[in-house]
């Protein structure tokens, strides 16, 4: 198994005014891994992913993707799915595919079209007229149709119905490369944990724990979902 670190954070800090969002986050993700980023609301998941995608700057520490801090190079090898709709709503599905093809040299338009067809999203459909779940599916198809080294998906399954969730999970499992890694944040742990290698638990801006899914099941006799509910009990 390849143990190259493709994505890491070292003592990462981020404040919004006086509020601390990340308080010394450190972890490393190796290639070939599918990793879940878990934590309650406000634990820093979206902030971490935004810094990694180069949309926010940290106040301290660093993120390294293939050894480099976020910038032009890391963006060329990182496929990021934001936590909200980022496509122009006046575009049609086909236009969005063209847009991605223009922007990203590693984008496979044929693959994207095939995925959209599987999910019954018509090329001529206007994005603004799609339901929230359909918009999310659309954006996820585009994100997964890049041949990236690192995929960062911020809550990719939230608004998606269970049947499409299964399709998307299978799509991820069939498509991600052995020399790539995928990190996704989610609250739908039960649906997705068997597809993950590892999980990173965030709590109040710090890493509580990074552990293999089967290692955790072996140790606790609980699923990751059950463990989460126990650890973060309100």
């Amino acid at each position, binding site marked *: *198994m390849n143990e190259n670190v493709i994505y890491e954070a070292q003592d990462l800090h981020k404040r919004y005014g006086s509020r601390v969002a990340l308080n010394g986050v450190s972890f490393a993700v190796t290639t*070939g*891994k*599918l990793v879940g980023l878990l934590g309650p609301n406000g634990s820093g998941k979206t902030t971490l992913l935004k810094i990694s995608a180069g949309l926010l700057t940290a106040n301290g520490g660093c993120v390294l993707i293939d050894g480099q801090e976020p910038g032009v190079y890391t963006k060329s090898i990182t496929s990021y799915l934001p936590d909200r709709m980022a496509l122009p709503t006046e575009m049609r599905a086909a236009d969005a595919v063209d847009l991605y093809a223009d922007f990203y040299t590693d984008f496979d338009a044929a693959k994207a079209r095939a995925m959209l067809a599987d999910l019954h999203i018509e090329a001529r459909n206007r994005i603004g007229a799609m339901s929230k779940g359909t918009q999310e599916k659309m954006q996820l198809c585009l994100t997964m149709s890049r041949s990236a080294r690192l995929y960062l998906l911020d809550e990719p399954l939230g608004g998606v119905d269970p049947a499409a969730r*299964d399709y998307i*999970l*299978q799509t991820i*499992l*069939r498509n991600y490369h052995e020399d790539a890694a995928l990190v996704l944040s989610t609250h739908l742990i*039960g649906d997705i944990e*068997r*597809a*993950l*290698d590892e999980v990173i638990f965030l709590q109040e801006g710090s890493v509580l724990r990074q552990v293999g*899914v*089967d290692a955790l*099941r*072996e140790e606790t*006799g*609980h*699923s990751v*979902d*059950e463990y989460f509910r126990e650890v973060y009990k309100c």
Partner: protein
Amino acid sequence: MDWNITAGRPVYVQLVEQMELALVNGTFPPGSKIPPVRELAADAGVNPNTMQRALQELENRGLLQAQRTAGRTVTADADALQALRRKRAVSLAAEFLYQMQALGLDRAETEELLRQTAEGGDRDE
């Protein structure tokens, strides 16, 4: 095939068990090629590394064989598959007897129950 991954137990252990079943019941016949890791993983909705670990375990036990160029095949060794079938059956039987004892049935009653159920009747009800 139908995969059923439940909470609480390591995923790879469950994959090994369910693959064993597929081997003894002929879903993957002796000597045949099994689908690639990635296909099996996607089918089961599990991580390919976890599926790989499960297949490796079966390979180490001689139930699957790695082919140099073309994935894995099921062993053609009928004795090995028979031994596996026997092992699984023995453990199911032991579990069944344990449950019957827990319900308070003695050995004669349990045997009688098995015979009746196999004949398709349940005369007590």
